[in-house]
């Protein structure tokens, strides 16, 4: 699924990899994710949300 090209429906633009700032429990960090180049909407696939992101969330909760 992640190999497919996603388009932002509103802007009709294909998403591009962009470094994006994430924030959780007062800490910020950046990660490269699919973003609409026009409106900046971010797409988080389930593998990322339930994989790496969940891991980092748990680490930050423990700190």
């Amino acid at each position, binding site marked *: 699924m992640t190999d497919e090209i996603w388009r932002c*429906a509103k802007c009709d633009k294909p998403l591009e990899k962009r470094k994006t700032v994430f924030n*959780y429990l007062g800490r910020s960090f950046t990660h490269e994710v699919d973003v*609409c180049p026009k409106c*900046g909407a971010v797409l*988080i696939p389930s593998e990322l949300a339930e994989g790496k992101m969940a891991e980092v969330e748990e680490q930050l909760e423990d*700190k």
Partner: protein
Amino acid sequence: MNRDDINRLQAEDVSALAAACVNGAAPPCGGACPFGVEVRSFIQKVEKGRDAAAFKTYRDAVVFPILVSALCPAPCEGACVRAALGGSIDLLNLERFVVGRAKNTRRDSYVIPQKEKRIAIVGAGAAGLSAALCLSLKRYRVTVFEREADWGGELRTHADFGDFDAEFRASFEPLDTEFHFNSEISGYGNLTGFDAIYLATGRAVPAPAEPRDGVFLGGGLVGADLMNSIAQGRQVATQIEAYVQTGAFTEPVAAQCDWTPETDDVPDVPRVIPSQDGGGFTVEEARAEAARCLKCDCDKCVRGCEMLARFHKLPQKIASEVYSDTRANPPFAAHTITREAYSCNDCGYCKSGCQKGIDVGEILRLSRRTRVAADSAPPALHDYWLREMDFSTEPAAFVSAGIGKNTCEYVFFPGCQLGAYNPAHVTRTLELLRGSYDVGIYLGCCGAPAYWAGDDARLEANLAQIRDNRRSLGAPKFIFACTTCAKIFAELLPEIEGVSLYSLLAESGVAAPSGTADFPAAFAHSVIFDPCASNGDEETQNAVRAVVSGLGVELDELPERGKCCGYGGNIQLANPSLYDEITANRAAESDLPYIVYCANCRQVFAERGKECAHILDIILGLDPAPSPDIDGRRRNSLEVKRVIADSFAGVSVSPPENPWDSVVLKIDAETAERADRKLIAQSEIREAIFLAERDRVYFERSDGVRQCSQAKPALVYWVTYKPLRENEYKVIDAYYHRMKFEGADDND
């Protein structure tokens, strides 16, 4: 502890909650020992063959190991809990074994500078020598005055004095203790220039009439026997050191044992009898006797609780960490106890089994309360249940004394989940109660989700609401169907009189008025699974049994009552693997079906596939309904309100409506179950798709699959879906994350 106390929490407030813990405290034998020998440590070393280390442990406590092991009357044996389980541990022979095998009895020499303080010791009997040795080892300038020509006092007439004399000589040989024999001290005038004086002149000499600063008394002079005289010598050395350094007088601290080791499952093992001539142990015998020792210590809470076992922390450590965690200031000083604090079922099991009544749940709840008060709690861990509480106290709430009535003598408080599981449990129980009682209805929430989350503000707001509603009904007695509600009320609303629904049914015989209920045949032989909140509430536990067995169910008992099903504390999101472990363990405690009297237990076991009925299924003759999903539970709660408002209160209520209610989802069973397990409601999926389609804010692939998100305060939900026709969507996946995205990295 109220909210102001939470904001001003001190270390001692937290440590006091675990201070009585006896883990690591002296076992009964150590408590009986005048020297406070660390018996567990000593015996473990003997068992492992570390005889030299065992010798040091012993010598450090008893000062003169040859003398003490020869003459000690072993009061430890009388205290040993093995006494009735094969015979007391033969500690004295183990001590003699270790002393006999000690190749190097010289004390380690450390480079300690000579201290200037001068100590006089009057009397070179066992008491005086013990104090003299301990102070000399600390490098004080010690002078011993003895009126006789040599040391030993009353020991001089003992047949083995030669051995003791040799031990004294070996002990003092490397030290610079001054001995003045044939020196009778007739008054303090002989003892000028000393910073402290220890009078150990034996029982024949009367003690000085007046206490004096810097003068310490011990041994036979104060009535001590030989062993206590030697033990006092070591204690007084510590007291004198404190006195000459600070001028303070400190009480000696003696090892005490004020707890009883549990020996329920300990098999008898006979005492090892020494086979050698003279009665000493061989090496094998010593190891076997040491292995027989139970090394009494208390870790019952850790053994009985999956959470404590997983983190392997004892109450005092947890208390200390909970306090230091309140000082955390991330990212400079990290929190250290988050996962433990949010993994506790708060079930009271540790407290119910603890000889000192320590409640680890209370300590960890304190941690969560301080986190919420400091606005540093991870919100996602309890968000779902707090929203469910909002639902129960707002759209699903309803209070009435009945048609045409303002007040009632009783009010039925079913709790938030009973009707959610099966509306008939509330509506038909209310009918049953109305036949015998002047009863009203209160659909709401006791506040357990806020209590568990540590959210004091939300909890207090709900309690205020309950007080107001109760007042408006004329202060009726509350009838509880849920033991968690009963527990929360008893703790936080003690002014409200409450009664368990099941006690009422048992007393009044209201249950099954026809004599037997038509309960499902599968439950003819069952066990009662008591909810954790029933811990300590034997009246309700017994009433449940009386009602169920009165209906003709044959009941067996689980090995233990009141262990949490896993739901308590709402730990499912904070520690999913621990939640799975606990729920699996509870479901496996018996092959027989469970009858529960907590709707949350019912939900947990239904999800586990364990055959399980709620007691009201048995009483009302209902087939246990399959566990509804999240939306089903909410629908059921609203249905309870609609039916009761209409039939009981004579008012018409409409459930709240949302514009996305009309969205039709096609979702296969596996995807639906996965979403439900993540606590994502289908109404949340509907909302996300509805808003995304309305505002055209979604992503789309060439195959028509779309993806949308919906940010909520604690979570961001995502739905992967495909439009099927107008307002109908196939749901492919639903998930969430807790992080928020702030936008593009400007440095990119």
